[in-house]
């Protein structure tokens, strides 16, 4: 039988419907037809990581001729074992939107004009050069993404930090996981989770701290539910500020006041100590106690600077500190009944229960994000429930390569692929591998993301290259930064696949090759690196982001540092990059193996992946068979004394509601891809504001009534959603940010955690008016 391309598309359409039906009706069958039969010999299936979330599901993409025509979960991927969520199943449709950029554009007389890409690249290089000549090297910046493939981020870092000599390198992952990084670094001295997804199959109790995994990490959530189904004692406790789909599926949902997770975590520790449930042996051998600064500010002012100190204290001082956090005292702050806090403490404290804590944006997008990360680690350290199957404090990332490209490659102002710019040894290593003079690498970090956009507004930065991200939708206090980007004398280059509010402000648009149109690597939440080959041709003049950077670097005279050919540059970059991590603490798998396997976890030592770090039973980097927190000079994990401090802006008489923002299952971030997939767009065609029914009644609004959400910074009018998929408590509203027609970030506040510099998108004060 011969299959035409049209037959393949029909097959894909039938399969998509079968998947949707099976999601709604598990066990559904179709008379005389098995959806699994929908295959054809001429479809070539190849592995790739999913383009969307940080779960990092393995997919198989079916290609017929030159077109991707079908997707299924990769049964060889240990992440998802053949499953995927609705975004994964429909992911190939992002390649074929009608309005793909297939040529470059250059702004001439105010209009974006199609331009041959080589000419556009000439202009980008010329404008970078002139900006540096006129205003110095720190007048140029690159802003990338946790959706950058690893070679993109690596090339950007080498080009900007090594060749140009500016630390103006940041990525949108600053907005989503910087607090997880500083949480890891302050507690363990090294970044990224110690555990892996096998924890999900081994835990007896899951505590989710302010994250809605049912929508944001749906495949991991299904894995959690599968564990619960197979063992009747498994419990899921949902600690949340708003009732979500995850709350519905949890055994117990505990609602807390925004920001008060700090008090709850301390109260859990208070209770564990009070009940003699501390693992004394573990803390005496593997933990030390430290105190940092308090009243540390919120960063809302330009040029805000903060650096923490670490004062060593003892267990007694820690106990004294916790006296302020009895469950009853924490109840007053959090609204959580003391009995529920005691219950949580009893779960963590029970030596016979393995406990995994999960979190994502609720804890990271927090003006005390580093602190709350530290405090959840404290609970696991006090009880010794860490670094072994099922006992795991686990920070999940949002983006597909926030770990791989931003945390591991180090595409942030202070970072290098190994270590930080402030350390001479790390600069030396980078200069050697990059073949640049050591003096090229500036020992001083420059701007973190919010401050980088402030510098653009102030005119200190005059050239910014934005790749794979949409800051003109996602920056908090957006109006200031959009107005800044549009100011006279700013030159903005945007590498993109579709028109967005960010490409609207561009002077040059470079058409990017997307995901399986180029070769690359992603790194997911469990330290798993996944390779993807180029499976389909690039449309028109679209170009891989890495190659765009190389082209401009060469035009600026850095041919020696970027000598690779188009045939092998991704492999060559990988081979160079992994020299930075060549130790048992972080060794990466070789290129050949990554091409073969559906992902490999690092540290990859003597041909083996490391599942649990810092535990000698599993981690060859430990000196012995016991725990070794080798990231810290004292080889101990640090328990931090971190108090509760209020949010930067809380509701008051004039602005009586909390505004909380986030995502929905069907849409990826700002929706520039998923809103072009018909089924996902149809499922959630526009954004909305979730309001508690009582608040809606008082306001006089019903479902779909227009509501004006107003803060001190801006306002947005959108439809009300009452008793929808999520339900905020009284006094809070929730808005998904995927819809560029409703720029909710014109309302949010650009306050951030002074340690991680990650903004808080979950808390600011607004008032509501019926529109």
């Amino acid at each position, binding site marked *: 039988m011969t299959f035409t391309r049209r037959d393949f598309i029909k097959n894909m*359409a039938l399969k998509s*419907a079968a998947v949707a039906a099976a999601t709604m009706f598990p066990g*559904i069958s179709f008379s005389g037809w098995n959806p699994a039969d929908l295959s054809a010999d001429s479809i070539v299936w190849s592995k790739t990581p999913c383009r969307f979330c940080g779960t990092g599901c393995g997919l198989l993409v079916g290609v017929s001729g030159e077109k991707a025509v079908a997707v299924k979960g990769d049964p060889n991927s240990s992440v998802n074992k053949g499953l995927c969520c609705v975004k994964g199943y429909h992911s190939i449709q992002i390649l074929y939107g009608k309005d793909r950029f297939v040529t470059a554009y250059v702004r001439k007389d105010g209009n974006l004009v199609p331009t041959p890409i080589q000419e556009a690249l000439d202009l980008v290089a010329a404008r970078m050069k002139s900006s540096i000549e006129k205003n110095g090297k720190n007048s140029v910046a690159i802003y990338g993404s946790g959706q950058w493939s690893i070679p993109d981020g690596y090339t950007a870092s080498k080009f900007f930090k090594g060749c140009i000599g500016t630390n103006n390198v940041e990525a949108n992952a600053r907005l989503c996981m910087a607090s997880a990084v500083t949480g890891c670094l302050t507690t363990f001295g090294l970044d990224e989770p110690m555990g892996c997804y096998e924890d999900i199959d081994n835990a007896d109790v899951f505590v989710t701290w302010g994250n809605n995994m049912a929508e944001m990490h749906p495949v991991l959530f299904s894995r959690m539910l599968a564990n619960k189904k197979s063992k009747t004692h498994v419990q899921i406790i949902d600690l949340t500020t708003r009732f979500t789909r995850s709350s519905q599926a949890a055994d117990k949902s505990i609602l807390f006041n925004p920001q008060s997770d700090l008090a709850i975590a301390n109260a859990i520790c208070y209770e564990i100590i009070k009940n003699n449930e501390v693992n004394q042996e573990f803390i005496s051998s593997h933990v030390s106690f430290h105190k940092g600064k308090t009243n540390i500010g919120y960063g809302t002012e330009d040029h805000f600077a903060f650096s923490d100190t670490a004062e060593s204290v003892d267990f007694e001082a820690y106990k004294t500190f916790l006296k302020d956090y009895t469950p009853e005292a924490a109840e007053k702050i959090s609204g959580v009944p003391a009995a529920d806090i005691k219950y949580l403490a009893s779960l963590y404290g029970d030596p016979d229960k393995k406990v995994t804590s999960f979190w994502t944006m609720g804890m990271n997008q927090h003006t005390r994000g580093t602190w709350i990360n530290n405090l959840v680690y404290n609970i696991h350290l006090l009880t010794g429930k860490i670094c072994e199957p099922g006992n795991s404090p686990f920070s999940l990332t949002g983006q597909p390569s926030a770990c791989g490209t931003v945390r591991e490659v180090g595409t942030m102002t202070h970072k290098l692929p190994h270590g930080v710019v402030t350390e001479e040894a790390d600069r030396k290593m980078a200069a050697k591998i990059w073949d640049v003079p050591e003096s090229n690498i500036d020992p001083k970090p420059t701007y973190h993301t919010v401050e980088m956009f402030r510098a653009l507004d102030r005119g200190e930065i005059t050239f910014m290259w934005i790749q794979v991200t949409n800051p003109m939708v996602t920056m908090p206090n957006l109006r200031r930064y959009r107005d800044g980007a549009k100011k006279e004398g700013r030159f903005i280059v945007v590498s993109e696949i579709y028109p967005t509010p960010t490409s609207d402000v561009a002077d040059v648009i470079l058409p990017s090759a997307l995901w399986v149109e180029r070769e690359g690597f992603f790194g997911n939440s469990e330290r798993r690196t996944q390779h993807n080959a180029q499976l389909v041709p690039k449309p028109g003049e679209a170009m891989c982001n890495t190659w765009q950077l190389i082209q401009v670097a060469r035009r600026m005279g850095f041919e020696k540092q970027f000598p690779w050919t188009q045939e092998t540059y991704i492999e060559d970059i990988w081979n160079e990059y992994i020299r930075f991590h060549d130790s048992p603490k972080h060794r990466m798998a070789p290129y050949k193996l990554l091409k073969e396997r559906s992902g490999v976890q690092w540290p990859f030592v003597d041909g083996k992946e490391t599942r649990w770090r810092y535990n000698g039973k599993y981690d060859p980097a430990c000196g012995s068979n016991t725990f070794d927190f080798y990231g810290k000079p004292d080889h101990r994990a640090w328990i931090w004394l971190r108090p509760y401090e209020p949010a930067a802006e809380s509701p008051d008489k004039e602005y009586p509601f909390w505004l909380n923002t986030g995502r929905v299952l069907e849409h990826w971030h700002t929706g520039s891809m998923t809103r072009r997939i018909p089924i996902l767009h149809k499922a959630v065609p526009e954004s909305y504001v979730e309001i508690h029914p009582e608040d809606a009644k008082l306001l006089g609004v019903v479902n779909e009534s227009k509501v004006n959400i107003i803060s001190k910074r801006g306002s947005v009018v959108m439809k009300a959603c009452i008793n929808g998929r999520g339900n905020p408590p009284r006094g809070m509203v929730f808005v998904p940010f995927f819809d560029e027609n409703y720029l909710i970030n014109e309302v949010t506040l650009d306050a951030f955690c002074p340690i991680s510099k990650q903004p808080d998108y979950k808390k600011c004060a607004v008032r509501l008016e019926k529109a």
Partner: protein
Amino acid sequence: MPIFSFLAFPKTDMKDRLIADLSAMAYCEIKPSGNKDVLILLTDTPDEEANKNLIDAIKALNSLQSLSMAFGHTD
């Protein structure tokens, strides 16, 4: 040449009728579920206009409760 797939839900006790109605329409292919009150509908029309007319006609069927799109492709 648009291709779409949908989950089509019949009104109560009208699944057989919906199957008959859709089977009689041009450009439609259906896969009824054997154990649930739902069927998969695949439409393959020559152009946008034919597609729009077909969807309007399907939506007007008395046996149809609701239609939920699963996949869409237009050349």
